[in-house]
């Protein structure tokens, strides 16, 4: 199996398609490389400070550093892992299940373009860009175990999870580890009895905005070129972020008579997460729709369903990212069109019909299969790894440490010392 799909993440990844024919001989394009380096920088900015702030603002004061640190340490840990074996496992030729060790220690990952990995940018550009994705995925999951997981357990979990789940499956599993973690770890001490208000919606707001900006690199960068496909993905991304905010806000308006800043930013993140598997395949108007649906559905998940079931997905990693990713994958089956993305050709040389709108209803089933398989693999893998980590170091901090807060108990420092 070729692992070098240049397609926007997650979509169609179960189709056994040949790598898109890239006929021009590889040659570096300064414009494309400029765009890809910028995109890599933007995706890193999504994790830090973006996601770190988004999550950090949602927790209580005593956990702010512990929560931000979960994102930050992944910027370091996953980078090392990626250089040593990760990139190779994810992207070199190997068995159908996992890549080989050909690129271990980045041997052979050079500065010349390689047609398999973006024919107009250095192979290393592709490698570093994909690394930024490998960092943010476990960082997103960390939202599910905020405020109660041991730092060591979190680091170990993320390493194992990357090795066993992400590197092999790469792009299928966005946010899906979240629910398992929330269930496995159990509720925070005092939840839902004690108030656990976000200690700073202001921080979350900054984070959400930077996520939005960074997401342009995430989705439009996935074209691996500053091409019109990049533009298309950029537009879809922005549109879905906008209507996601509107959808969530409307939901709040109906139920509470008010719409909140936290709601609007959560909705935009839901819209952005949802459009991700579909951006680069859909037109602008469907993107508006997809984002809106995402905003409404994720709101209902978080505000209604979560309350009913009573699990403690502290920062709604599952409710926003897991659900969003699922909606997005399915809607891609509906709205993907070869008017946007004609990377797949039929034998006749014509661009292959993609989603329902192209007259290919079967794609919805493919996408559904992708969703189900993704959930099952990610869920099972996550659960097993949690068990292992729990045996090795214990996943949850002690009760007193939880009350004291992660900042002091895990890191020996405090987020704010205003009175100093």
């Amino acid at each position, binding site marked *: 199996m070729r692992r070098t799909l240049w397609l926007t993440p997650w979509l169609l990844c179960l189709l056994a398609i040949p790598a898109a024919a890239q006929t021009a001989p590889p040659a570096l394009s300064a414009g494309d490389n400029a765009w890809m380096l910028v995109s890599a920088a933007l995706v890193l900015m999504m994790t830090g400070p973006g996601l770190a702030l988004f999550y950090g603002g949602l927790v209580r004061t005593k956990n702010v550093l512990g929560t931000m640190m979960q994102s930050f340490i992944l910027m370091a840990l996953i980078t090392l892992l990626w250089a040593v074996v990760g990139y190779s496992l994810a992207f070199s030729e190997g068995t159908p299940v996992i890549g080989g060790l050909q690129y271990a220690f980045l041997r052979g990952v050079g500065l010349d373009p390689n047609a398999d990995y973006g024919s107009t940018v250095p192979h290393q550009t592709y490698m570093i860009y994909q690394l930024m994705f490998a960092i943010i995925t476990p960082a997103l999951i960390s939202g599910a175990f905020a405020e109660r997981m041991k730092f060591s357990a979190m680091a170990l979990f993320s390493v194992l999870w990357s090795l066993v789940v992400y590197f092999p499956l790469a792009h299928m599993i966005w946010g899906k580890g979240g629910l398992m973690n929330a269930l496995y770890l159990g509720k925070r001490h005092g939840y*839902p009895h004690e*108030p*656990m*208000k*976000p200690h700073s*919606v202001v921080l979350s707001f900054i984070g959400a905005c930077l996520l939005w900006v960074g997401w342009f690199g995430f989705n439009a960068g996935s074209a691996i070129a500053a091409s019109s496909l990049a533009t298309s993905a950029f537009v879809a991304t922005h549109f879905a972020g906008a209507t996601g905010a509107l959808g969530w806000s409307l939901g*709040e308006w109906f*139920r*509470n008579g*008010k719409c*909140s800043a*936290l*709601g609007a930013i*959560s909705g935009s993140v839901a819209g952005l997460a949802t459009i991700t598997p579909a951006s680069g395949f859909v037109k602008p108007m469907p993107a508006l729709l997809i984002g809106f649906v995402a905003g409404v559905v994720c*709101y209902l998940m*978080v*505000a*209604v369903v*979560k*309350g009913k079931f009573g699990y403690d997905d502290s920062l*709604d990693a599952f409710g926003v990212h897991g659900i969003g990713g699922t909606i997005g994958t399915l809607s891609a089956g509906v709205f993907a069109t070869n008017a946007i993305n004609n990377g797949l050709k039929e034998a006749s040389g014509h661009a292959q019909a993609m989603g329902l709108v192209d007259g290919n209803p079967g794609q919805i089933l493919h996408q559904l299969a992708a969703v189900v398989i993704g959930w099952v693999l990610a869920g099972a893998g996550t659960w097993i790894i949690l068990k292992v980590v729990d045996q090795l170091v214990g996943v949850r901090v002690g009760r007193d440490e939880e009350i004291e807060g992660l900042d002091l108990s895990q890191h020996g420092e405090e987020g704010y010392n205003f009175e100093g």
Partner: protein
Amino acid sequence: MKKIEAVVQPHKMEDVREALKDIGVDGMTISDVRGHGRQKGHREVYRGQEYTVDLLPKVKFEVVVPDNRVEEIVKTLGDAARTGKLGDGKIFISSVEDAIRIRNNDRGEGAL
């Protein structure tokens, strides 16, 4: 010597200070507190999770004064802080036995 403790609405702080200044009460210590009483709290909703917040921000004045000025000050303070709505706050009066000015070790009423 008496200590007058008054818990008032935060937006009345400026008015109270000026009223006290006008009658020559200059020394005071102020802190930010939260209060609970008859005044109804408000509802906050974060991601669908509702919180009824009934600890509302208040400002506490502490003024230590000679016995003979208590009534005048209580009246002035009360008038300045009053809006007539629930939550205007309370004034408590208690006895203080001695006061010391740290700077020069003055004691008693002269230290105020």
